[in-house]
């Protein structure tokens, strides 16, 4: 599989300073376990890329291989037109921001930021002057003589950012940069990272396990699972047109159903679910009768209707279930439904609709949807019992 992505805007083509990252057949093995299996990925210059997946999926290993802190077992990594495997981070033009920021505890903020210049033999006055300017840029110049331990988490993060940016990198690598911050700061820093990336025009690669973070920031979202890339695309593509049941479930916001093809007419196929439910799905070319197909329907495209009588005939494009719980989310209500004999099913109902026809836990309901909102997944769910990823 190969994923090539178009940048949001045309990249400034400068062969010397291009921050395009190309991974070619990259594999990383630790002893006998594969952390990363045969990855091919191109991240365009000047784009914001998020590597997204649960812990242990190999996203951090990829970041560390790009940074030069890990050597791939096989495969090539190119930055610009340079093959960088075996090169030091500084030669690669990358800079990394560590998860715990790794600010040197024995140096002042100013000396932390000036560290790179000191290593290059830049004189004391010169390097402190440049560190000053960099700190001014992240609005922390007034704290230059403090020690890292005297700073708040958000301030430490900005120092780490300044320390990385003073190397003038083509690629900035961020390892879970927002995970140590509280919710309020996280949202604020998220915005600042995005602004900064647009301002600098360099490539940002950001590792996260938080879906909203990836969707909010990235030009390119790369969803990973078990050392492989499941899907790479724009946030819109990943969220609305997931290709696999895994991506659909991991991104949240989707309900995944599986059935076998019963009949096909034109561009529409009719599927039969395991309990006899009927689903319509836009499928072309017409599939073979009996093929298993998985479909996804967004949570906010579901209408929840109460069962009028005891024995209601189930209409096509609906399932039967019992309300498990409801969560008020402000401008919508999340209704968790247990489908009879099946897994969880979630409907995000608008507050108007919810308070118009109140459903309570224990109510028998029929969630239904319009077939035009059905999205067919390229892989059928193998109906495995394992549910590796819980909701959000």
């Amino acid at each position, binding site marked *: 599989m190969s994923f090539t992505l178009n940048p949001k805007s045309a990249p400034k083509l400068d062969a010397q300073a291009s921050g395009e990252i190309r991974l070619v057949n990259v594999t990383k093995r630790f002893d006998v376990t594969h952390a990363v299996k045969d990855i091919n990925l191109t991240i365009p210059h000047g784009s914001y890329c998020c590597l997204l997946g649960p812990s242990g999926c190999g996203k951090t290993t990829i970041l560390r291989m790009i940074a030069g802190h890990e050597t791939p077992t096989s495969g090539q990594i190119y930055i610009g037109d340079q093959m960088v495997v075996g090169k030091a981070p500084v030669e690669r033009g990358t800079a*990394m921001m560590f998860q715990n920021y*790794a600010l040197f505890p024995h140096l002042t903020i100013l000396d932390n930021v000036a560290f790179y210049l000191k*290593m290059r033999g830049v004189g004391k006055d010169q390097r402190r002057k440049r560190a000053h300017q960099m700190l001014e840029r992240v609005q922390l110049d007034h704290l230059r003589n403090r020690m890292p331990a005297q700073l708040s988490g958000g301030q430490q993060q900005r120092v780490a950012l300044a320390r990385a940016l003073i190397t003038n990198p083509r690629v900035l690598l961020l390892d879970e940069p927002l995970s140590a911050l509280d919710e309020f700061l996280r949202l604020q820093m998220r915005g600042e990272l995005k602004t900064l990336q647009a301002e600098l025009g360099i490539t940002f690669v950001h590792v996260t396990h938080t879906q909203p973070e990836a969707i909010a920031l990235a030009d390119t979202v790369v969803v990973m699972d078990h050392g492989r890339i499941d899907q790479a695309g724009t946030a819109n593509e990943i969220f609305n047109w997931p290709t696999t049941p895994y991506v659909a479930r991991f991104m949240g916001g989707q309900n995944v159903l599986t059935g076998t093809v019963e009949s096909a007419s034109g561009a529409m196929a009719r599927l039969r679910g395991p309990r006899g439910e009927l689903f319509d799905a836009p499928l072309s070319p017409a599939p073979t009768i009996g093929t298993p197909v998985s479909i996804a329907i967004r949570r906010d495209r579901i209408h929840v209707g109460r069962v009028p009588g005891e024995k209601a005939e189930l209409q096509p494009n609906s399932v039967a279930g019992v309300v498990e719980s409801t969560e008020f989310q402000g401008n919508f209500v999340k209704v968790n439904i247990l489908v009879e004999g099946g897994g969880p099913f979630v409907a995000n109902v608008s507050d108007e609709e919810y308070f118009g026809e109140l459903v309570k836990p224990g109510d028998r309901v029929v969630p239904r949807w319009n077939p035009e909102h059905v999205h067919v997944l390229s892989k059928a769910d193998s109906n495995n019992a394992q549910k590796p990823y819980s909701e959000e």
Partner: protein
Amino acid sequence: MAANPSYGPRPWTFYVLATLFALFVVFLYGPMIAVLILSFQGPSASLVFPLRDPSLMWFDELFNPRRVGDVVGAFSRSLPLALMVMVLTVLISVSAGFAFRRRFLGSSLIFYTAIASLIVPGLVLSIGTLVTFRYLGLSASWYTSALGAHLSWALPFGLLIMFAVLGRLNPSYEEAAYDLGASRWQTLKDVVVPIVFPGMIAVALFGFTLSYDEFPRSWLTVGTKNTLPLEIWTMTTNVTSPALYALGTVTTVVSFVVIALALGSIVIIQRRRSTRE
């Protein structure tokens, strides 16, 4: 009930533990204070309380050895020996600590072999060292055989401290330094050593004090000339004057000065760092 809010009486365990701690302090400092006071004993030369006609005569006696042993000579051997043990313990423990950060084949075996010398009784080790030196045709002296015997005692402590210190050192500091273009040597000099420096001071202190007051491992290994603890031991058997107490006071003061210097240097370094412009 009572007007003041009450959070209940202290539990009985508080009084038990407080008594225990008070006893601990008395046993720790009581003897030291007794020796300190009696070292100022007057010409009555009484070895017990009360203190009569306080004077400095026994300190004078100490440094003018007419009847007392060779205190100055013993000190001039003990101090350099302790300093050598200190420097070697720091160098070896720190480098071994770095080696053990990455697991290598046989690392646990080497670790336990090094630690095992803590279990061997000091006197036995002393005899063994002497016998081995004799067998090899070498003569025992404070700067060869005694140095080795002291290292066998101080190094395991140094190693254990360094393992604890380096075990807590987050590898991302070194990665960050590498990421910012530091060479291995620069990483060591500008990042790792400054971060673990307080641990190195602790190792140095252990090395110094363990050697400075070591008796069993010095017993047969120092050769013909005594170190301070051996000299004190000899004096207790043939000197019966408060000069013994004066000696105790002087050696304790030397130990305290060394500790104060070490801790003071940590404080000064940290202050210099935090206020540096």
